[in-house]
Each structure stands twice: as C-alpha cells, then as structure tokens.
C-alpha cells in the first residue's frame, strides 16, 4: 500500500483507528529525503500490519506544533489515536519494523 499524505483535514480521521506510522518530514531536510525510500519499502512489506503516512511539517505547521516536533525526521507510531512510540532521526528499517510488531 502506498504512503498516505496527511493534512490538517484528514489527520485526525486517519490516525483515529488502527496502527499508523507517521513520518514528519520536510523537503529541505536531507535525512528526511533519505528516510523516505526506506519507509516506502517497509510500507510494502508491512502493509498488513500498519498504515504508513507522512506529514509535511512545512505545509502543516499546526499539526507539527501539536505534537511538539522539534527535529526532523520524527516518526510517531499511533495506535487507535494514541502515541505509542516516537523516534527522532533516521533509524535502521529494523527499528521501525520492531515497534510496529510490538505495538
């Protein structure tokens, strides 16, 4: 399944139920661009375990502010709307896979 693009219009609805991994990113951020293909691949591999989504902090600053995003990339794992895990900075794919499997 492809990665869903989140905006302030669909954010709350999309994270409300199920396991959702959200990548907070921005175009100017090199490490964010490096993380993108890693998460693309993981989204395909774990499509039955989690929904993968991303939020452009430049386009949606209020949502970024709501979650206190102070460094990018930041990845937040939500389950039924609750924050379960937060990972700041680029992590190996295995780290994201583990938090999804253990949620």
């Amino acid at each position, binding site marked *: 399944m492809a990665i869903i693009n989140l905006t302030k219009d669909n954010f709350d609805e999309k994270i409300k139920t199920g396991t959702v991994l959200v990548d907070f990113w*921005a175009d*100017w*951020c*090199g*490490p*964010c*661009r*490096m*993380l993108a*293909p*890693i998460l693309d691949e993981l989204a395909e591999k774990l499509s039955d375990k989690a929904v993968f989504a991303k939020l452009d*902090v*430049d386009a949606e600053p209020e949502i*970024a502010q709501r979650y*206190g*995003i*102070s*460094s*990018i990339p*930041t990845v937040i794992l939500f389950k039924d709307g609750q924050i379960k895990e937060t990972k*700041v*900075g*680029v*992590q*190996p*794919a295995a*780290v994201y896979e583990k938090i999804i499997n253990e949620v």
Partner: protein
Amino acid sequence: MEYNIDIAVIGGGPAGISAAINTHLRGKSVTIFTNSYKSSPLYKAKKVENYPGLPDISGAKLLDGMYDHLKSMKITAIKAQVLSIADMGEGFYISAGSEFQSAKAVILATGVVQTSFYPGESELLGHGISYCATCDGMLYKGKRVALIGLTGDALEEANQLHDIGCDVTFISPSIKPDKLKPGIKVLKGSKFEFKGEKKLKALIIDGVEHEFDGVFITRASVAPDLLLPGLDIKDGFIQVDKKMQTNIAGVFAAGDCTGKPNQILKATGQGQIAAFSATAYIDEREQA
C-alpha cells in the same frame, strides 16, 4: 537497488585521503565527504616531525599536498557534513547536506572522537537541540534560538537561521563573530549546560540561565554511533579488526576514530588497509 558509488569515504583527513587514493588505484569509484580541510586542526600544525621523507613539513603543506594528489587523480571530494548513514543491506544511503548518495561500502574516517557532550546535550538532542540548521531551522521560524559555534561554518549557519526567520543569538568560545548579519545577537561564553525534562527549557551559559526555544550546535562531526546506529563503539572509538572491518558488514573505519595513537602515519596506513578491505568486500559480493 542501485548504488551510485562503490565506496563512500566519510572524512577528508589523512585517513580518508589515503583510503580514497587507494580505492581509486584499485579501480573502484570513490567519493569523499568532508568539512573544509583547512579547518582541520592538522592544518594549523606548524611542524610535523615524524613523517618519513618530509621532515619538519607544516600541517598545511602536508594537507595541501594530499589534496593536490586527490585532484591529480580526479577524486571527488564533496564539502558537506554527513548527518546520517542508513544500512540498506546491500549498500548504504549517506545523507550529506540536503541530498543523499548511495554506496556499496563505507569507510569511516571521521577523526578525533568527541567524547565530551555538554551536560544535558545527549538527553535533549532532537528535543530542542539540533546539529543541523538546514534540517531543523524552519521549525524555529519566528522563535528564539541560540547557535553554539564550535566549527568554521558556524557563522554561515547562524546567518542561515537568521535568513529563515529565527531570532538568533550567536555564542562561541573560539570563533570571532565577524560577518554576522545585522539582527543576530552575540553572547560570550564557553561553559554550556542544558536544562529541560523532555524538552529544552533553557541554556545555561557560564552559569547564567537563558531561555531559548531551540539550540543549534555546530560540531565538526556527528558521533559515529549516532551517524550509524548499531556501530560497535568502545570508549568512543570505533571497534575494528586488523582489516579495519567494523561490526557492520560493508563498513570499515580508519584513523583517529579507531583509537590512539592520534598520528598521521597511523591514519594513512589504516586508510590504505580499509581501502583494500572495502574493495575486496565489493569484489567478493559481486562474484557470489
């Protein structure tokens, strides 16, 4: 997956240069990622007494000669700080500046290890403290930030943050605040401490508390285990075997980052061994 270079060398000091030259001579493509070499402490050394054949050469002349050697071989050296390396299994992604490159193998030649973080720095990194103005600057648009300048590009980074729209205060124990854009405040200080529970609350400069929304620190390099999570480090040094192989397949290390003595000759020797090992690693995988 395609990897666009054979070997990425992280660090352009003697170890990195030697690794790049020897990789090139073994017929593999190589790119060095480095800060400006003229800001290296070696460049300021007045006299190097123990380089065989070059008695009493200055650090500057030695490094200039090494860079001429790279140029004569047309080896690419990209001036950028590497912030993150991702192990993709068959190769690596390297994030440098606002782009990322890919390589089949990596040689870490990141230099003298910085083992002393300011109190509170490691805990609050990513929670108000950042090493990357280009990555995180925009998140602090219109907010109060401090930049602790420890490297040559500190002034440039401070100006960049100012241009983004941050309210910048520049502090450096060593760098003169010349060429800062108007509007950037300057504070003097050399002892720093960070205060905050889960998020940065204040920066204590020489015992005086100042409130900032964010603090940027320009360090010469990101600590190797932050750069590449999972890397085996002991006392701050990257652990390597005799072939300069680390615990991660395809990742090699050379020079001061592997431990003492901090000597140019040791660095160049290890750089060569790392190059031999990395090229053999690529050949073995391609033949398999």
